[in-house]
């Protein structure tokens, strides 16, 4: 099981011959991800790490039957890469690219909804189903196969959270960064639904952060639809209001969106929220012992 990606995923890499694309392609292949090809315009016909390179996603899909893509491209062509993949019929798109303009982001996220494409990101570290496949740039050695599903907007926090769990011997079903951009594709709720339906997942860890209203909305959803235990962590308690903290999303604007309001909503939905990620790991450990 696990969600979205596993050993059956047929993955291509957009920007496979670039510096980061090739570095992480190698790491993904080493981890066992079924990388079936890559795309770099102008490099079609060549090979890298034993997989064929194509000029277009359409060619790659036609030749490799890929169902998943990961984009390592500069922000100025980030939207183009995602739309190319949607247009070529790729089912799942992991958009690593950080810095895609807001208005491009709005268009591609909406286009992915309209075309029933799963878009993870933009500005995501990717997704890993430990021991099955990684489609992303995570440090794979900190993950362990198991029964905890983790999701977050922040990449670095899913690393830390997984690390804290793995240190305790608690493994993960799938760990997913939904992306740190102002507008992203797959939503927290859609990931929660998938974890709820996933047989491998017994506990869900939701990492939220200040800004936006998604965690509050997710809390309501959890209360009504999620039967599995959910443990939360919210980052940004000490972030000053009105200052942008790196992430585009991580800025408190308007009513709500503060760490306190998010923790309150989650608590009301029966979600235990840890003060540190180590504390979250302990709560998870207790839940699993029951």
């Amino acid at each position, binding site marked *: 099981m696990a969600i979205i990606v596993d050993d059956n995923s047929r993955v291509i890499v957009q920007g496979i011959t670039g510096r*980061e694309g090739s570095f992480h392609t190698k790491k993904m292949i080493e981890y066992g991800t079924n990388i079936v090809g890559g795309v770099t315009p102008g490099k079609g016909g060549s090979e890298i790490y034993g997989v064929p390179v194509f000029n277009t996603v359409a060619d790659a899909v036609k030749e490799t039957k890929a169902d998943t893509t990961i984009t390592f491209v500069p*922000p*100025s062509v980030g939207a183009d890469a995602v739309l190319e993949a949607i247009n070529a019929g790729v089912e799942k798109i992991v958009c*690593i690219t*950080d*810095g*895609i*303009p*807001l*208005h*491009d982001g*709005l*268009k591609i996220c*909406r*286009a992915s*909804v*309209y075309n029933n494409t799963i878009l993870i990101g933009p500005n995501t*570290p990717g997704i890993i189903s430990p021991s099955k496949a990684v489609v*992303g*740039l*995570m*440090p794979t050695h*900190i993950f362990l196969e198991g029964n905890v599903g983790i999701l*977050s907007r*922040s*990449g*670095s*926090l899913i*690393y*830390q959270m997984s*690390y804290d769990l793995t240190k305790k011997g608690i493994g993960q079903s799938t760990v997913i960064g939904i992306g*740190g*951009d*102002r*507008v*992203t594709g797959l*939503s927290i709720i859609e990931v929660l639904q998938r974890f709820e339906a996933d047989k491998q997942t017994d506990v869900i860890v939701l*990492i939220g*952060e200040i800004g*936006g*209203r998604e965690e509050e*909305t997710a809390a309501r959803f959890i209360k009504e639809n999620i039967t599995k235990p959910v443990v939360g962590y919210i*980052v*940004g*308690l*000490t*972030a*000053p209001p009105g200052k*942008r*903290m*790196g*992430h585009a999303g*991580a800025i408190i*604007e*308007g*009513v709500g969106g503060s760490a306190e309001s998010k923790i309150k909503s989650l608590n009301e939905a029966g979600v235990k929220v840890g*003060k*540190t*990620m*180590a504390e979250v790991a302990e709560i998870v450990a207790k839940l699993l012992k029951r």
Partner: protein
Amino acid sequence: MRLHEYQAKSIFSNHGIRVPRGKLAKNLEEVRKIVEELGEEVVLKAQVLTGGRGKAGGIKKAKSAEEAIEHSKNMFGKNIKGLTINKIYIEELIEVERELYLGFTYDGLNKSIVMLISTFGGMDIEDIAAQHPEKIIRKTIDPLIGFWDFLIREALYELEIPKKFFKPIASIAKKLYRVFIDYEAELCEINPLAITKDGDICALDARLNIDDDALYRNPDFIKLKDYSQMEPLERTAEEKGLKYVKLSGDIGLIAAGAGMGMATADYIHNFGGNPANFFDIGGATPEIVKKSFELLLQDSRLKVIFVNVLGGLTRCDWIAKGLIEAFNDLKVRLPVVIRLSGTNEYEGREILIRHIQENDLKGVFIVESMEEGAKKAVEISKGG
């Protein structure tokens, strides 16, 4: 990137939105000239990139050049929320019948653009939302389908605005939406949007925040950036392309990833310490690490630096190289606590530890976890 009111008004005006006649003054002489030119009662508005100017004395009316100069003397050089007033925008005073709020921004949750409109203009939208939530109409705009008349029509009926204002307000809303799209804005706002005594519609204030990520497509705007409105260290950081936010404490933080940066600040706070900043070096090259050190070392408040990396895109070996360059080339007089995990962590730790041993660096502490690092940094900051 937030534009000044006078810059935004010029753009709005070019798009056919009526704004009061006005000019920018940089000194008292210009103030006199402009007030005399306008030839009637004026409003003086401090051009600082923050909200709440009015309450802070940044907006004054004047009936004569003398009065305007009197007010200007009290403005020029003064601070509002830490930002220096060095420009005053002077406008004709508009007789207002009624004040509305009109703005466009994005809604991440719905993957949409959103129009906000309210009959409670002149207040912060946050305050309206808190005090009169039913008086803000939100209209979701599909970014692929765009803004159509029915949306503004629905909003105006919901607000029960007199029918005679429908056409002019709809016209301004369409123009403002055009600005939002053409300038790739994050936010564009007219607050208050005045219905004047003579029945016309006029934008009394103007806010336009342009998406930094899209500036490469609108390079003219980069020149409009007013660095005088930034904290010096933040300004240096921005010029060097670093992601830095100044906070009020004494522990310098360098973390890989925005989430990790915030979490590190939270952890420090949890253990009783106070972060002096938030610094994200996610995906950094050795050069960026060194530049970050350079910046932090200019900050006299600091007692310790905590480097917290659990890298994905960020490679630990590169971080280590950057740290070594910093140790070699800069006078690192502060203790440094380092946590280094993730991508290429073995390579990174190895070269770093070797360097520390070979050079017998005393103030550098390698820790095993985020908690340990946060505790150690707090301890040092408290003189431990």
